């Protein structure tokens, strides 16, 4: 649909927008579960360690699976049995909540024995009605800011086969491209990252909210322009704030969902609080959750290849783009498809460059040209980056910050910008005693500078070889209609290096954290999953 027609549709939807609430009353197991899990959180909020974090995550995940899913409660997708087992195991270390978790176990047991899910019935009826009335419709599956075990799959398995016309709205990207007559939101919406867009984005004319009584539906008020001046506002149905009936306990649990969810996921082994920035290379990074239950930390200012638009548009087949679309880490969204390396060591680019150098019998070029980098790293670790910068300044060169020196120890920046700056750096390393014995610093710097120039040429060649091969692979994937699910391993023909894979993003940490540089880009499995 062209954007003019889309916008016209958005304004039409806004003019006739209507919210219908369908509250499921008198289903006590869910009401009880919400109360008991809330009590668990109250107790655990005072404890700050990894086990408490994991336990909170498990309790939260089970509550969300029960409250937000439409699958029968016995569905293996929800993993209620397994999760309750893990909760019981961990709860032994927290005597204050043993009684609460025991009650949670009993409720879970009851639900497993009486698996009929009342939300399923309600949602099913609404979908049936939408189909009957020939309404273009969808259901929101992005119901939490993080990721809840089996939730999306439960919707697809319950609805997908019966109603292929139903759109599963699992991300902001999908919602932003949608113009529907009817959207079903099977929750109170307060944990959904899409709530504001659902209410004020004009994506639907009718929003059906299906929630349990204890979910306590409340709609966020529309953010208004500042007071003063002349104001103009059209009459519409979306501007009315709805009063909140939340309790304090809900607010506390919500706070945890907003902040604690991610902090409980960030592994302490990677994210340390007290770094010595002078003697360690630390970068601001964001944790990205991937659909194959792994995670990766990406530098905040890093750009990664993001293919979702390319895969969807198919325009790629007619005209190959010269470069791949890249997205800054801070701009990544749920449902983005990012390319990461999944085997080998170092950067993918270097690995390809190494194989090219080997072919030309120059296998030592990289290690010889960059021999000075480990010397610099040791010098920084020993003397600190601020001391080394002082020495560089005394020789007439300056940098924006002493931490920047650390980038010269990595493959991101092969060499300082000018040969004169490099000569001075090598002279400093020589003064501090880090050069090989008997080296003449001037000759050493001149020879390394020449070798680095050659090394950069190979990196450049490697870059274009990867690009061409990746383009051909993408073309093949799109032409053959290959479905890219949670993860897709790429085999790049003619490129000798480890493997690259495409991953679907399922969560992006709203906050950045300090992470050692060596942990950037390393894929790890998420224990709690």
């Amino acid at each position, binding site marked *: 649909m062209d954007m*003019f027609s889309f916008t016209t549709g*958005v304004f039409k939807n806004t003019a006739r927008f209507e919210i219908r609430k369908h509250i499921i009353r008198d289903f006590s197991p869910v009401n009880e579960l919400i109360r008991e899990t809330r009590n668990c959180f109250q107790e655990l909020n005072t404890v700050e360690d990894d086990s408490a974090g994991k336990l909170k995550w498990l309790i939260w995940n089970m509550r969300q699976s029960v409250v937000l899913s439409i699958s029968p409660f016995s569905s293996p997708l929800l993993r209620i049995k397994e999760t309750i087992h893990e909760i019981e195991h961990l709860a032994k270390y927290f005597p204050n909540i043993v009684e609460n978790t025991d009650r949670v176990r009993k409720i879970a047991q009851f639900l497993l024995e009486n698996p009929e899910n009342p939300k399923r019935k309600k949602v099913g009826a609404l979908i049936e009605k939408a189909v009957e009335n020939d309404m273009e419709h969808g259901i929101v599956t992005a119901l939490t800011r993080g990721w809840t075990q089996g939730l999306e799959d439960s919707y697809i398995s319950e609805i997908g086969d019966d109603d292929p016309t139903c759109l599963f709205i699992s991300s902001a990207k999908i919602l932003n491209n949608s113009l529907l007559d009817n959207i079903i939101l099977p929750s109170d919406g307060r944990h959904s990252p899409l709530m504001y867009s659902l209410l004020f984005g*004009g994506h639907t004319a009718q929003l059906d909210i299906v929630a349990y009584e204890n979910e306590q539906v409340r709609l966020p008020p529309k953010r208004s*322009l500042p007071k003063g*001046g002349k104001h103009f*506002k059209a009459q519409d149905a979306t501007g009315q704030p709805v009063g909140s009936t939340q309790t304090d306990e809900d607010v506390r649990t919500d706070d945890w969902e907003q902040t604690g969810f991610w902090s409980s996921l960030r592994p302490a082994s990677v994210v340390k609080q007290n770094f010595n920035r002078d003697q360690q290379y630390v970068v601001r990074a964001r944790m990205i959750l991937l659909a194959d239950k792994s995670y990766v930390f990406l530098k905040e200012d890093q750009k990664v290849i993001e293919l979702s638009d390319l895969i969807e548009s198919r325009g790629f087949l007619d005209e190959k783009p010269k470069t791949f679309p890249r997205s800054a880490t801070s701009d990544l969204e749920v449902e983005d498809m990012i390319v990461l390396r999944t085997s080998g060591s170092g950067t993918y680019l270097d690995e390809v460059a190494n194989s090219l150098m080997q072919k030309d019998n120059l296998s030592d070029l990289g290690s010889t040209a960059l021999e000075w980098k480990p010397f610099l790293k040791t010098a920084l670790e020993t003397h600190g980056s601020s001391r080394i910068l002082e020495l560089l300044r005394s020789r007439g060169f300056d940098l924006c910050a002493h931490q920047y020196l650390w980038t010269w120890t990595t493959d991101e920046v092969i060499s300082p910008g000018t040969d004169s700056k490099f000569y001075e750096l090598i002279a400093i390393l020589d003064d501090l005693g880090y050069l090989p014995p008997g080296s003449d610093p001037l000759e050493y710097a001149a020879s390394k500078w020449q070798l680095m120039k050659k090394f950069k040429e190979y990196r450049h060649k490697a870059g274009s070889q990867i690009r061409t091969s990746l383009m051909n692979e993408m073309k093949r994937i799109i032409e053959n209609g290959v479905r890219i699910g949670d993860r897709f391993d790429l085999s790049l023909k003619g490129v000798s290096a480890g493997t690259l894979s495409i991953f679907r993003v399922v969560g992006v940490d709203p906050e950045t954290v300090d992470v050692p540089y060596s942990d950037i880009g390393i894929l790890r499995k998420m224990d709690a999953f």
Partner: protein
Amino acid sequence: MLKVDRIQVQTEELGLQRLPGWAKSMILIGWWMRKHSGGSARLFMPFLLPARYCCSAFCGLGSLLNSLTKDAETVTWNEFESLENNTRIYFVHYGDLMEGTVGAFTEVNRERGRQVYVEKGPKKYQDSSLSIFPDYIQKYHVSLTPHAATKRQTKKLSKAAFFYKETVEGFNEACIDKGDVETLIVSNKAAWDRQNENISLTYKGKTHLQKITQLLMKSDNVDSGPSKTLLQSPKTAQSMEVPLVILDGPDALQNWQLFTHANIIILLSHTEYDQEAMDLISMLASCRDESIIPDKHTPNSGFPPGCESMLFAVQQT
């Protein structure tokens, strides 16, 4: 006066139809903000919308249509008469843009005219001269500053002139040739082009369609042709003096400081109106002077549903 109801739109999806209310509102806002530019009050109009796709193009069109009612500042016969010999002038002759210097007075059939020595123009006029007479001076669009359009573009623009004539009362054709940028749109260029490339407009009773980008006389830089509407990317936006600036989206909003005299329309979707945007607009609005808002005919009716807007004025510095 703007005859917005005469405008019709065609897209692949919708076919030919009357302009929807939201697009009309955007044209009216652009018209009104351009109309009140250049005074002692500098106007700001932030807009919160359910979606802002295509909105800046229609605001820009309103601004352009208003600018076509202005005095084009072409040279009158009295001014022409009083120019010193060898003064350089720019003029249009049978659609060709030409440059020359004024010379001696002549008399043909008792009518007094003045010679112009052609220095730049089509080959056939090279090293020749022509005479301009009082009755025809308007046809020549004589100006002391260069015109923007080339001959080919002038032909294209003459098609656009039919559209302008039918939709604007008081349309001054000479304004088309002037090279002044009327509106600067700061927006993601690739997205903007994608959103607007397939919108064609016409007026009631005619089926000859013209692309909105053509009607806007849009270009990406001031040197690339007749550009009444300039599109700049938020990342590379540069300061310039224009009557109206449209900041299309949150990235564009960050550039507000570049434009120190223009009236400013800010377009944001509701979801884009976050704390940062809120703080910035609050800060701008805190400098307002309630007493200098132009009080007549403020664009206070027919706002499309789901929209919120405010108007405030600050004293020109």
